[in-house]
């Protein structure tokens, strides 16, 4: 029921004007064109209660910010783990390609991803949507969520097993999820401040669960509960 309601709300969001269109043909004026992805004006509550991470509170937050600042000094990890290429945002040549030709030019809602576990107090901040390349192929499926203390993005990207990361080497490791090879990216602090991720290799692409403000055990639990239709 929740899934059906979310799907139709997302469809409405796209039909009501969130769908980007191209600029004028041949227009090359700098700084114009494109637009934002679909999003809800009002987030939709999906789970009751509220998840409060261990770092929450004035003292914990102050310690977490200091620890995250210490992480900034460390070089970012780049390499291959479990067949998944990890690259940094500073290496433009290493960026994965999303479309064979051109870039994502439109979005449409979908319900290919389903979620077995979301933390208490999770709100959907966007509908679940696909980014479509000029040839109609799907570049990515994404849905964004949030709670009082955390943000969460769940995505599936067909194609190359490659993922950008902003974590130091000591935070990135190989693991398995549901018997599939995967990457584990720990948050900046053990209590969960900063970004963590679980990236799971499927035969045709990557499932990505990225959290901001959640302990890694929560991020992993979410990833273990995701099902992807036709992935």
């Amino acid at each position: 029921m929740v899934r059906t309601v979310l799907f139709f709300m997302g469809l409405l969001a796209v039909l009501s004007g969130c769908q980007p269109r191209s600029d004028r043909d041949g227009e090359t004026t700098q700084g114009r064109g494109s637009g934002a992805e679909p999003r809800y004006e009002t987030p939709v509550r999906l789970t009751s209660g509220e998840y409060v991470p261990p770092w929450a509170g004035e003292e914990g937050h102050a310690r977490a910010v200091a620890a995250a600042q210490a992480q900034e000094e460390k070089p970012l990890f780049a390499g291959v783990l479990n067949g998944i290429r990890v690259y940094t945002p500073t290496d433009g040549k290493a960026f994965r390609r999303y479309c064979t030709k051109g870039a994502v030019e439109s979005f449409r809602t979908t319900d290919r991803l389903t979620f077995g576990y979301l933390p208490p107090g999770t709100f959907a901040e966007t509908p679940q949507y696909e980014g479509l390349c000029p040839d109609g192929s799907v570049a990515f499926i994404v849905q964004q969520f949030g709670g009082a203390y955390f943000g969460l993005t769940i995505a599936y990207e067909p194609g190359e097993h490659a993922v950008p990361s902003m974590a130091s080497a000591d935070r990135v490791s190989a693991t398995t999820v549901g018997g599939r090879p995967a990457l584990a990216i720990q948050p900046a602090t053990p209590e969960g401040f900063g970004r963590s991720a679980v990236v799971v290799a499927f035969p045709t692409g990557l499932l990505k669960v990225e959290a901001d403000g959640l302990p890694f055990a929560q991020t992993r639990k979410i990833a273990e509960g995701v099902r992807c239709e036709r992935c």
Partner: protein
Amino acid sequence: MRTLLTLGAGLVLAAAMGLWPDAPAEASHYSVSISLYHPTGNATNDARLTCGWHTTCDGVFTDAQLGLDWVWPSNMSYEVRLRLFVAASFSSATVVGSVSTANSTSGCYKIEATIRRTDGLRVGLVVNQHAQVSTPKAWNISGREQGIYNDTSIGSMVWPDNCTTWGRHTMQWYSRAWTGSSFSKNTSIPTESQCWYDCYSPYGIWSTREYLIQFPGP
């Protein structure tokens, strides 16, 4: 009248169903106001607004007025900055929250700067699409009655982009995460219909705020 009653009942029902993140029950002892300014330009080179309030800058003016497109004059730089003017009900500089920046690593390229209260509660996000950080950052923000300027380099416009666009720029908008906070857009900045083609309005570094964000301290 009937419409008003229906609307009122709908709002009560929405609140009862928990359609928004709940505000923790608390009595705040201070208030914070953050003015968000544009992400390009500097003290000697005005920022250039290249598309007024829009969701999609395409000459179709019926979409939501989500954000603004910015460049540096003559493409002299592709740097993206986060500019906040933080005022709070303190006579001297006091930490009122934090900002942490990171790339959204799924979907279209964008930088997300998360504003949190001192207890870690997410107030909202400043999003800069078509841009990427080179390294994530976290820092405390302080406020006082007279206000404190906070101007931080957070990343660069990205090219080529993974989502359709024409030329390097960044689209900036604010997304509220906690309904205990409030925000308002500056409607004196033109909309897409008022500023679309050949829209190169210059803006001084601290001349015109995009948003006013307000929240109580814990």
